[in-house]
Structure formats: structure tokens, C-alpha cells
């Protein structure tokens, strides 16, 4: 279970990305974060695994507080993340990218020599098989199409054996068919493994077909929380009304460094 209390984030340039968000996510939910660009979706997701340090408020993942340094690595191990730009290491092979999900469970010295436990390598291949890319395991990641790269991203997250998957605009850079496939895989993971999945989207139609619960975020505040995927037109208006105002903030995306790696 994820519990978020009074979460605020103000970036150095004065952008208020989150203005007091309270949210509880139960285990096994498929939750979609909806909202226009700049509404704070990415920041909210990144606060959950500590990639962004909140200005105020508290987040606990299964009872462990994210802001306590001793919990941070543990939480990151248990939380898989998927990115809009896939964020694969392009010059490494697909299997090496998937094994990156096992690094936090591996001996530092051996992993730096690219030595992994045989069981981990088998599991990485199994994860690739789940996303339908087992035959691409030994190709370089940059030889794959966008949709395939995103599926490798999912396999990397699965390789962590996480309890929770955060997906930050996972289909925004994909064509409709690849998008459908990626969303389908995420739903399968949610249903078959009972894994909690939080996906940020800005496509209302996709959200309608996959979400179990929809959270609407606008200007850093929670404006909608609905345990159904069907949104009425006034609810859409609530999240997206005066879209142009919110779109102005698009340039304010946080630059994430790993000072607290």
C-alpha cells in the first residue's frame, strides 16, 4: 500500500509542481494518473521512488518512509519504473538492459565484470519471454523499434521482481498499436501477478479502457478520484479545462540528477 500525505514539491525555479496531494493506493490496483502536461504527474511518480525529493509531505510504501535514507534503496529495489523515453542503455544488448533490473540484488564487484548468477540470467530471459522479445535478447537495444524498446523497459522492471510498477507516460512516444500492446502487457502483469501498477497517461480514451481507478491531476492538485474508468464529460472538463493554461508549464519538467543515489 502506498500512502501519500500532504505532498508538496516546489522546484528551484519556483515552479510549484505539487500543491498538497493526499492519496492512498491499495495493493493490486491498476491506477491511471490523468492530467495535462505540467500537471505534476511525473513529479508525483518520481516522489514515490525518491527520484525527486518532496518539499513537504510524506510518502510510505508498504509502511516504509521514502524520505528515510535507509529505506530508499529497499524501496527502489521493490519499485519498477518505466519511462516515456524508455531510457534503455542503447549500446548494451537487450539482455544486459534487462539484467540492469537485477543490479540492486547483485554483488557490486561481480556485476561490474558483467557476471550474474545463472538464475538471474534465466529469470531475465523469462521476463523477456513475457513481453514477447526472447528472440531479441542478444541484439543491441538501439536496433529495436520504439515499441520493442518499451517492452524491454517493462522486462527490466519485471526483472526487479517488484511489488509496484510506476509507468511515466509509457505510451506517449509510441504508435497506437505499440501503445495498445504495452498497455495490454501492463494489465496482464497487474491481473496475473496482482501487482500494483500506476500509469500516467494523457490519453483519456486509453485510460477509459484500462484503468480500475482514475486520478485526475491539475496544476499540482488532485481534482478527481474515481473508482471506475468511465469519465463523464464534466469530469474530463475538470481535469483538462483551460488546457492551454496548464500547457504553459511544459518547460518546467524537473531535471533529475542522482545526487542521492
Amino acid at each position, binding site marked *: 500500500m502506498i500512502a501519500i500525505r500532504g505532498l508538496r514539491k516546489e522546484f528551484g525555479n519556483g515552479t510549484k509542481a505539487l500543491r498538497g496531494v493526499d492519496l492512498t493506493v491499495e495493493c493490486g490496483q491498476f491506477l491511471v494518473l490523468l492530467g495535462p502536461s505540467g500537471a505534476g504527474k511525473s513529479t508525483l511518480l518520481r516522489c514515490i521512488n525518491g527520484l525527486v525529493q518532496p518539499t513537504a509531505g510524506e510518502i510510505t510504501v508498504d509502511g516504509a518512509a521514502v524520505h528515510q535514507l535507509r529505506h530508499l534503496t529497499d524501496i527502489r529495489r521493490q519499485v519498477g519504473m518505466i519511462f516515456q523515453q524508455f531510457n534503455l542503455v542503447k549500446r548494451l544488448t537487450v539482455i544486459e538492459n534487462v539484467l*540492469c533490473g537485477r543490479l540492486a540484488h547483485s554483488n557490486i564487484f561481480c*556485476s561490474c565484470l558483467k557476471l550474474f548468477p545463472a538464475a538471474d540470467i534465466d529469470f531475465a530471459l523469462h521476463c523477456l519471454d513475457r513481453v514477447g522479445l526472447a528472440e531479441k535478447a542478444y541484439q543491441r537495444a538501439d536496433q529495436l523499434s520504439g515499441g520493442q524498446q518499451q517492452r524491454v523497459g517493462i522486462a527490466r522492471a519485471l526483472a526487479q521482481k517488484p511489488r509496484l510498477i510506476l509507468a511515466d507516460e509509457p505510451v506517449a512516444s509510441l504508435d497506437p498499436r505499440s501503445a495498445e500492446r504495452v498497455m495490454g502487457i501492463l494489465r496482464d502483469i497487474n491481473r496475473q501477478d496482482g501487482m500494483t501498477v500506476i500509469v500516467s497517461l494523457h490519453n483519456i480514451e486509453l485510460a477509459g479502457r484500462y484503468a480500475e481507478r482514475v486520478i485526475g491531476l491539475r496544476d499540482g492538485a488532485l481534482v478527481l478520484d474515481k473508482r471506475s474508468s468511465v469519465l463523464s464529460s464534466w469530469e474530463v472538463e475538470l481535469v483538462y479545462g483551460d488546457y492551454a493554461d496548464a500547457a504553459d508549464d511544459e518547460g518546467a519538467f524537473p531535471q533529475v540528477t542522482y545526487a542521492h543515489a
Partner: protein
Amino acid sequence: MRKNGAVTLRPVLPWFKDGRAALRQLALAVLLLGVYAWSAAGTHLSISELLRGVPGLADIVARMVPPNFAILPKLAGPTIETVQISIWGTTLAVLFTIPLGLAAARNLSPHPLVYGLARFVLNATRSISEIIFALIFVAAVGLGPFPGVLALAFHSVGMLGKFLAEAIENIDAGPVEALVATGASKWQVIRYAVVPQILPEFVTLCLYRWELNFRSATILGIVGAGGIGFELVTSMRLFQYQDMTTILIVILALVSVVDYVSSAIRAKII
């Protein structure tokens, strides 16, 4: 262009924004011309003097030919030594560069103080030429090729480290973020997200530095730091210009060989 229609030309952007901008640019042009004139006076730049030197130059060139190939066997040892100096000078430089480059990259440096110190060391070693380093090391460890190796290593670190740090600062931060998000440790993130991204550029850089170091190694002998430069300066002091020509030919040939080998390795790796 049409045969008889006049073509009107006009600038895409106005050349001068306004009168004040025009004046500023004029002043800048005058200033630049002034600097050139001043430097010409300081360096006794003179075409007449160059022309007066032509007969002397012709005399030396005439005495340089034909090259005296009889000394070739005597050159083999110093030539091999020059190659060896360049190999170890570059390798030691690469070894010193890796920790310094990591510390001097803003996005990896553990602390601003460490960053500042690494940048300072890199700038300092870069600004001291290999000849000056060679003089220092000859004084410290004595004549021979070893001070030459040290001189190349210390000078090369400055450039290699600066470029390594810049390569690290320019990597795509996405994969780094993704690996941090998995809970991987800092060294694992460097190994899996940073190293693969900078490796081709860094290898190219090291090979290029090797080419430069080989050229530098040919003159280290002038200050007694080993290699073929010692033969060169000896033959000049003894006015044996035909020997000098042979040495220059050997250097030219070797520089070509090193350039060829280095670009062959580069093509293989990237």
C-alpha cells in the same frame, strides 16, 4: 538568374541594428586591427627580413640533400624507444585520467570541493607543456626515456581528463535515472549507464592523444628525455644536415604509421 532582369540583393537580417550597433562594430574592428599591428611590432614581423633569409634557407636545404641513409642502423634503437615512450606515456595518462575525469564531471563528482580540485589539477597539467615537464623530470629522475614517459603522462592527463569529464557531462541522463530507480549503487550506475555511453568517444580520444604523444616524443630527446630527438639535436649541433634529413624522414614515416594504426583501431572499435 534571368538573362536581362536585374537581381536585387538584400540581407536576410539587417547588417546593423541601428547606428549605435554600427559604431560598436566599427570600434571592435579598429581594436582588432590595433592588436594585430601591436603584435606585429612586438614580433618584428617583416617580409623584407624573411626575403633576406631566403639565401640562408636555400643554403641549409642544399646541404640537407641527399639524405645520409648510412646512419639508419644507428637510428633503429632511438626510434623504437620513441614509440615505447609514446605507448607508456599515453597509457599512464589514461590510467590517471579515469579517476580525475570522474571527479571533474559535474554530474558524478562526489563533492564540489573534489570537483574544483580535479578541475584545477587538469587545468594546471594542461597548461604546462611536455617539454617543461620533461625538464623537471630529467632533473628529478635523471636522463633517459623514463622522464620522457612521465612528461607525456602528466601533460596528457590535462587534456584527456577535461574531455572525459565533458563526455560524462553530456551523456543522456535517462538511462542513469532508470538505473538509479532500480536501486543500483553508484558504481553500478557508472558501469552500466555511463561507461557504455562514453566508451567510443573516450577510445577515440585516447588514440588521438597517442598520435599527439608520438609527435611530442620525437622532440623530448632535445632536453635529454630519450627518443629520437636526441639524435636530431646532435646532428644539428654538429652541422650534419644530411643526417638530419634522414632523421626527419624516419619521423615522418613513423608519424604516418602511428596515424594509420590508430585510425585502424578506431575503425575496428566503433
